[in-house]
């Protein structure tokens, strides 16, 4: 088991290096650079900028250097904790991303927990009461959840919350707490706002996980080892949780990796609609203006989170399923 964990950690290193390279290539792919985008936007608003100044700026920011020099400068900076400079915000990237990454993690992890708890409970009920009214209801609601676009759900929930509860629910904090330092009151305020993004981002995932768990559990309930356990005289509930549920959880757990990545990237539009101070909206802005170090750092961090999510799911799998450990 220990060997397996160490092996998995070692595999992570080349994966991450490769990701950083791909990320850097991708953010450089659009023609031009941040200055071209900046000049274009100035021109749109009627301002003109001296081409010589542009060249000077380009020289200063190092946009003219060859690709690998730029990459090596960036990655060696990242390894020392320096993520480069955001041209758009005129601040070091390091100062910009931590708050947003932190809040993104809060939103994503709580959404993941919500998704798991709800879909586990409903999936378990659906499978053990196959073809009952409750099962059909769960299936019906599940498919509606799956088919409704997130931003639509966000708008509906915002409207309902405003109309019937008088809550202003956009963002993650009320105005008076947004800039305030962390306190108990700010935390409570966060909880008051958090439920809408959790429901909005989590619904689609919940619906699909319900289907996954239901199908798996139905499969497992028909397996001979369940009959063996019944023949031993085990009670139904004890049997259910010890054998089929545990095995049906295997695909459940293996979804952590990609669900997590999906939660983070899928929350961009929701983030914009709900005006969340998460990574999504800022990342989109950075990509549009070719604010390369900001966008690159975001992408790198999101990839790291995904890789870690996959690692966690692999380790959980190895705990649940001994057949993986022994391979």
């Amino acid at each position, binding site marked *: 088991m220990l060997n397996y964990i160490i092996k998995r950690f070692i595999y992570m290193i080349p994966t991450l290096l490769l990701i950083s390279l791909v990320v850097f290539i991708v953010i450089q792919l659009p023609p031009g650079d941040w200055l071209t985008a900046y000049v274009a936007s100035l021109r749109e608003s009627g301002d003109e900028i001296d081409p010589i100044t542009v060249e000077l700026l380009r020289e200063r920011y190092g946009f003219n250097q060859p690709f690998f020099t730029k990459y090596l400068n960036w990655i060696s900076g990242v390894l020392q904790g320096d993520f480069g400079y955001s041209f758009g915000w005129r601040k070091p990237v390091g100062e910009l991303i931590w708050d947003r990454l932190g809040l993104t993690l809060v939103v994503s992890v709580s959404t993941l927990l919500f998704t798991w708890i709800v879909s586990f409970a409903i999936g378990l009920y659906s499978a053990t009461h196959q073809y009952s009214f409750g099962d059909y209801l769960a299936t019906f609601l599940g498919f509606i959840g799956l088919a409704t676009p997130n931003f639509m759900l966000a708008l509906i929930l915002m409207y309902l919350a405003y109309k019937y509860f008088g809550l202003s629910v956009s963002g993650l904090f009320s105005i008076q707490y947004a800039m305030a330092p962390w306190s108990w009151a700010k935390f409570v305020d966060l909880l008051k706002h958090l439920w809408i993004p959790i429901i909005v981002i989590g619904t689609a995932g919940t619906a699909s996980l319900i289907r996954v768990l239901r199908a798996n559990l139905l499969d497992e309930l028909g397996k001979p080892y369940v*009959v*063996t*356990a019944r*023949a031993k*005289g085990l*009670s139904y509930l004890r049997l259910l949780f010890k054998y089929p549920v545990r*095995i049906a959880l295997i695909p459940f757990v293996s979804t952590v990796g990609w669900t997590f990545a999906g939660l983070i990237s899928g929350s961009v539009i929701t983030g914009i609609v709900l005006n969340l101070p998460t990574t999504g909206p800022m990342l989109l802005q950075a990509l549009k203006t070719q604010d390369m170090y900001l966008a690159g750092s975001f992408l790198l961090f999101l990839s790291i989170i995904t890789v870690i999510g996959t690692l966690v799911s692999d380790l959980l799998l190895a705990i649940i*399923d*001994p*057949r993986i450990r022994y391979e």
Partner: protein
Amino acid sequence: MKNLLEIKDLKINFNTEEGIVRAVRGASIRIDKNIIHGLVGESGCGKSVTARSVLNILAANAEIIGGETLYHHQGEIVDLSKLHPDGKEVRKFRWRDISMIFQEPMTSFSPVHTIGNQIMEAILLHSDLSQVAARTHAINMLERVGIPDPAKRIDEYPHQLSGGMRQRAMIAMALSGNPKLLIADEPTTALDVTIQAQIIDLMKQMKDELGMSIMIITHDMGVIAEMADYVSVMYLGKVVESAPVVELFYNPLHPYTKALLKSIPTINSKREEKLTAIAGTVPDAYCIPDGCAFYPRCSQYKPGVCDRSEPNLTEIATDHQVACIMYHGEVETDGGK
């Protein structure tokens, strides 16, 4: 009393989307103490369902609609078929009094729990033994069924054992509660021939050591000849003939039994000789013919008799019962004409 288990006129239906399947249509079997009782028949004849119904562990869409399963337990008689399938009463009899092993040793163990965990679970559930004592008992049982190095094997997972070893472990698990009856549902079907012989020997040996009865379900007449003391032949949800094993092989009465025995190759058959297959196919379980279910395939079919009334299992010699109109005396036959 030498009776251990009496299944009387058992009827089981399956409610499926296509309709009701009458899987067992009035089967009667009597199992005595300390014998091996074989239940033989083609696939789909209801033998496994009958066996599972003893422990009341049928599938969710199956329903016992009639008959009795009388278990003779310490001077009392309990009708197991009337107990609630998930209730405490019937669960007490499972494993402790009546235990069961299955066809697929690969999938009959949970793949994610150790062998020891699964054996000890049963021991701890039905006794007051401590964890340590239960483990010692489990290792002891694994050793008795011939698993080498049981103290190490007990902590292994099913996928680390071979098919034969898994079936041995299954037998160890089933017998660790010292049951009065072991129901073995095609225990050798999924194993290769040499392992089959070993498992059969092991079951016979354990039966003598523990003084229990075995009900062995199989479609293989060879296994019956090798193991059973007494045989019941099933066809389409009914027992059509019951007799001691030697009597059945040398003096089969029911046309189905005769046809079954003719379809087996023997060591003396000449090379040119063709095996006699039973004519026709098993009727659809959704529309079982009126009268004797076997008449469409029977070589001694009497029109106007066999397709009218279904013959009951009748004792025509000591311990030899058959359900065929030919042996039911002239009165019924005349009545049919």
